[in-house]
Each structure stands twice: as C-alpha cells, then as structure tokens.
C-alpha cells in the first residue's frame, strides 16, 4: 500500500463519516460543521488526484463560501439564542428508497465507465489547460452557466428585497 | 419677556403666590395646579429648559417639591414650588410638560417616596428595586441596616 492509496482511504473514510454525520447529527449547527468537513475532504480527494486547482476552488468556494452562506441562513432564520437548533428525521422509509435508488444509479455509472484503468501521468499544467479549454472548446456552456447564475442572483435579490 | 413681566403674568393666575425679590421668579403653586402652571410657564414665559426638580422634607409640615425651569434666551428662571401638605405624598407629574422631569422625578420618588401621578415609568432609579424606605426623608434613620446586611 503506497502513500497515495493510504491517503485515499483516510480521506474516503473521513469523507463518508462526516457526510453521515451531516444527516445524523441532531444539532443543525453541528451538521453544518460536518458538511464543511465533508467538503474539505472532497477537496483532499481532488488534491490526491493531482487536481490541485479543483481542490483549491472546492475549498475557496464551498468550504469557505457555502458554509458561510449556510451559517448565515441559520442565523437569520432561526432563533438566535436559547434553545439549540435541532433537526429530526421524518419519512425515513421514503428517504431510504431514494437513497438506494441513487446508490444503484451511481454504482451503475461507475461500473459502465470502466474507471479502474491506470491513471495517466499528468504532464502538462492542468490549470492552464483547463482555462484554455473553458474559453475555447467549452465557451458556450461556460457562458450559458454564467447567464444562469446571473439569473439566479437576480432572482435571489428579488426575493430577498425588503418588504414594501 | 423679562423677569418682571413673568412675575406679573404669574401673579394674575389665581391660587399662585409669587415671592418678591431675588433674580429667580419663585412661585408657590397649589399641587393640583402644578401641571397647568408648568405648561403656562413653558408656553407663555418660554421656559423651555428644565434644570432640575427635587423635594424638601419639612418634617412636620410635610414635603415640598421644587422645580427649576429656565428661559435661556431671556435669562429668566422660574422656580415652581408646591407644598404637598403633611402626610400627603401625591403630586402631579411634570413629565407630560418636560421630558427631563422623567429621571428627576424618579429620583425624587426614590429618595422621598413622592408618588408622581401621570409619570410613565415611576421606578427607583439610583437605589436598588428592593430597597426599603426613602433615605432623604428626615425620618429615615441613617444607620438602618439594609438587607442582606441586617
């Protein structure tokens, strides 16, 4: 077992563990913290796969930004002080069916794609390559995503505006 | 407006006694007229500035409240004095006329136990809420032990 495999397993166990804690923790604030851990774990997996750029973006946007927004949402929507925020699981059965379905689908995709081939060596600067392809080959989807996000932003502003 | 004119105006109101002499215009007001006289002093004489109000314990003669109000533009000081009479602790509040009377009357209530009628928030201000008695009354024994130090 070399270092890379070891790193993968450590990260994987940590990732799954914190992901489970996100849904199992009774305290909503703790859930958010576990979510942060899960997102950082994902970034770790990216870095282990030599995709440092993705890993760093993962941390910058998700672990930093999304957590911030989630925490902010808790703060402005729930009671501030006093009782602890809590979450309870309802409709466990339905949730289990959906989860099993998704798991089967993901497994199916993984099995079909034949992902167990040896990983090619990274030779070029992946970051540079990514930037170039985003602005040439994938320019249209990239711009479309931009427009979509802008629309989302405008909608959010519309809903968040103070009541007249 | 001058002090003399203020004196003349105030002496026209029935029930009031305007003391002679002194730079300040001192008026003895019956308690029930206090609020209306204060409003008159503020509106007509222009005494918009509320300096302070307090009380004096005349032992057997009872309490007397004193309020200093001033017209800053014309340098007129009007002193509103109201004898509550022996055994009486009720007095109309000046808060509807002067907002500054709020804390001053709370202090007077705290120290003398004067019940200001019409005061929006008559609580103790300097002493703690569970204090017994009103210390500036002459009848208050200074060395009264206070719980929990009793």
């Amino acid at each position, binding site marked *: 077992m070399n270092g890379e495999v070891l790193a993968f397993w450590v990260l994987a166990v940590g990732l799954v563990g914190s992901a489970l804690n996100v849904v199992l923790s009774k305290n909503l604030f703790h859930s958010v913290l576990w979510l942060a851990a899960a997102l950082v774990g994902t970034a770790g997996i990216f870095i282990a796969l030599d995709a440092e750029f993705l890993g760093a973006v993962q941390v910058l946007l998700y672990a930093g930004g999304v957590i911030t927004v989630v925490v902010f949402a808790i703060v402005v929507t729930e009671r501030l002080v006093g009782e602890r925020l809590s979450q309870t699981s309802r409709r466990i059965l339905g949730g289990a069916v959906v989860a099993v379905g998704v798991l089967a689908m993901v497994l199916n995709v993984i099995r079909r794609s034949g992902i167990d081939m040896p990983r090619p060596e990274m030779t070029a600067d992946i970051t540079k390559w990514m930037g170039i392809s985003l602005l040439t080959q994938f320019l249209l989807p990239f711009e479309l995503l931009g427009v979509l996000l802008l629309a989302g932003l405008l909608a959010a502003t519309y809903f968040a505006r103070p009541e007249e | 407006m001058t002090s003399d004119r203020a004196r003349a105006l105030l002496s026209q109101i029935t029930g009031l006694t305007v003391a002679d002499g002194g730079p300040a215009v001192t008026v003895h007001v019956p308690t029930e007229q206090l609020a209306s006289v204060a409003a008159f002093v503020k509106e007509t004489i222009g005494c918009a*500035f509320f300096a302070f109000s307090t009380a004096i314990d005349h032992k057997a003669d009872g309490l007397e409240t004193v309020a200093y109000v001033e017209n800053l533009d014309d340098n007129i000081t009007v002193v509103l004095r109201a004898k509550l009479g022996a055994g009486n602790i009720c007095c109309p509040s000046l808060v509807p006329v002067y907002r500054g009377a709020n804390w001053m009357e709370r202090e007077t209530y705290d120290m003398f136990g004067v019940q200001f009628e019409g005061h929006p928030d008559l609580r103790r201000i*300097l002493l703690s809420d569970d204090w017994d008695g009103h210390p500036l009354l002459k009848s208050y024994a200074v060395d009264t032990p206070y719980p929990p130090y009793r």
Partner: protein
Amino acid sequence: MSEVREIDYTGSERLTMNMGPQHPSAHGVFRAILTLEGEKIVAVDAVIGYLHRCHEKLAETLAYVQYPSIASKTDYVAAMASELAYVMAAEKIGQFEVPKRAQYLRVAVNELQRVASHLLWLGTWCLDMGGALGGGTSVFLYCIREREQILDLFESLVGARLLYGFHQVGGVRYDIPTGWVEQCRTTMDLIEQRLGEYESMLHDNAFFEMRTRGIGVISSQLAQDVGVCGPLLRASGVKYDLRRNAPYSSYEDFEFAVPVETEGDCHARYRVRMVEFRESIRIVRQVLDGLPEGPISSRPGVKSLAQVKVPKGEAYARVEGPRGEVGCYLVADGTNKPYRMKWRGASFSNLAVLPHIIPGVTVADVVAIMGSVDPVFGEVDR
C-alpha cells in the same frame, strides 16, 4: 423626535443585550439594556445608580467646612467645578464676600479643569470609537500625556491630583506657589500646540467623519426639554453659557467666545469642545496676566467645624462645569450643616437624553453617542 419606546422582549428575532454595568465603553458603571434587531437598537432601558454614594444625605451630616472636599467626589474628573458650586451656594445664602484674587484663582483652576476634563473626554471618546487595539488608543494616550501636565499644576497648587478641596466658603484654601505662573504658561502653550496635532489626526479624517456626522442628533427643543446642558446644549444650537449668561466669580472680566453649532450630532459636540479648549486656555492666560494681589479668602483659616455658620435661607448656585451646568441647591437652617442639599449633576441630565436618541441607531453608534455625551458616573449617581 422619538419618544422613549416601549420595551418589547417578546419578538422572536430580537436579542436583548446588556451593555454594562461592566463594559469597556460604559465610562464607569452604566448599564444599558439594549433590545436589538440585528445590529439595530429598537429599545433601550438605561440603568444607573451603581455608583450611588448618598452624597445628598451625607451633606446633611457634614459641616460647611467639611463638605467641599467631599463635593469633589461627585464629578471626580472635574472636581473643581462641583466644589465651587457648593461653596458658591453657601456664600450666596450667607452673603459672604469673596476677594478678587480668590475669584480669579477660582476661574483659573476651573478653566484648567475644563481643559483636563475635555482632554479625558477626547481620549476616551476616541478610545470608544477606535478601540483599545487601534487608532483610538493613540489619541487617548496623547490626551492623557497632556492631562498629566495639568494634574502636575494642580499637584503643586494643592498637593492632590484628582480630588482637591481647593475651594472653601469665602475664598480658596491655597495661594499659588512661586514659579506656578510660568509653569502654567508653558503648559498652556504646549497644550495649545498639541491641540492642533489632535485636530490634524481627527479633522477631515474620513473614518472619524463617518462615525460622528449625523449620529445621535439632539434637537435644540429636545435638549432644552430634557435639561441637556453645557457643550451638548451649545452643539444643539442654543447659545447658552453660564459664564456669559449668568457670570459668577468675575467671569465678566474675561474675554472669551461661546461656540455654538446647530447640527446637534456627535461631530458638532466635538467641534464645540475643541473651541472650548482654546477659549479656556485664553481665559487662563488672561487670569495669569491680570491676577490681582490681596487675600485669598475673606474668612480665616479653618480651625473648627462650627466656624462657618450659614444663616437660614436657600440658594441655587450653578457653575459652568466641563460637562455643563453643575448646580448646587442648598437649604440652610442657620446651623453649621445644611438642612438639605441637592446636586444638579450635568451628567445626570445629559445622560437622561440617551433613551430619546438611542433607539434606531446601531450598537457601534451607541458607544460614539455615549462618548460624545461624556458622562461621569460619579456625578450621575452621586
């Protein structure tokens, strides 16, 4: 003008926060129970009395020769002003004469006291707005450095640095030592020069302007209604200064300007006090130039408690202290002790305006407003 609002603790998104009684910017022991919606304050309940020492009851048990030293403990930042108010009230009832030299000395120490007190105000105010770990501390330490010089002057005059017991009924207790006049002049020159330095740090400083302009506006009507006095009243557009409008202790002999600003916000109060600094220095210089010779007291040195007896009567004496009208209402019954004494503390009335102006501002503004009001809790609680 906003009235004192009902305090509603029930709102689900409201937060009740205690500011004080032990809080870095409580300026002593002041407790404000703030009800917050986010950072905005919707209601405030001011709680005072933590420093209450029964001054008024105490005065009924102390003789006229004893109490002036205790009077200095009401407003311990401007001890000279409250002492003067007390002795002036006694002099007014007893028609005691005060020699010209004593009057001039009283003016000198009161103006020095005003400078010292305003220095402390500027320092602590900037400390409130700039933090103990920021630019505020710098201003604070500069101000304290200059205040020390004035305290040195007081020390060589009376031997004490904070509570003086300088005034007595009929005059003052100590004459100036040799070299004091020169020391005083040097100090005044130094402070006047340093004032320019403070202003270069604060004036036109964008951060300072942002924190003070339009914050805590007191209208002239509200100011008079509540009895706000001193620099706050003048910053609200009322040109009223007891030294000019009701001169005492020979203030009519001196030339000085009474600054007035109309905005009524924190910045206006700052500007008024900055002018007062310079005017006080000007008055001190005039006193030093024109100090007459003669006795410093119309009465002999204190030998016994019964020495000063004040005839039956009553008087209200007021002094323009650094914080405004410091008044002493004295009822005498002919013995050597007052029958009743009432302090009209400038800080008490100035602080009473807070519940009227705080609702609607943010937490950060509260400290700026508190600092600009410049309360001393010894005087509020007495």
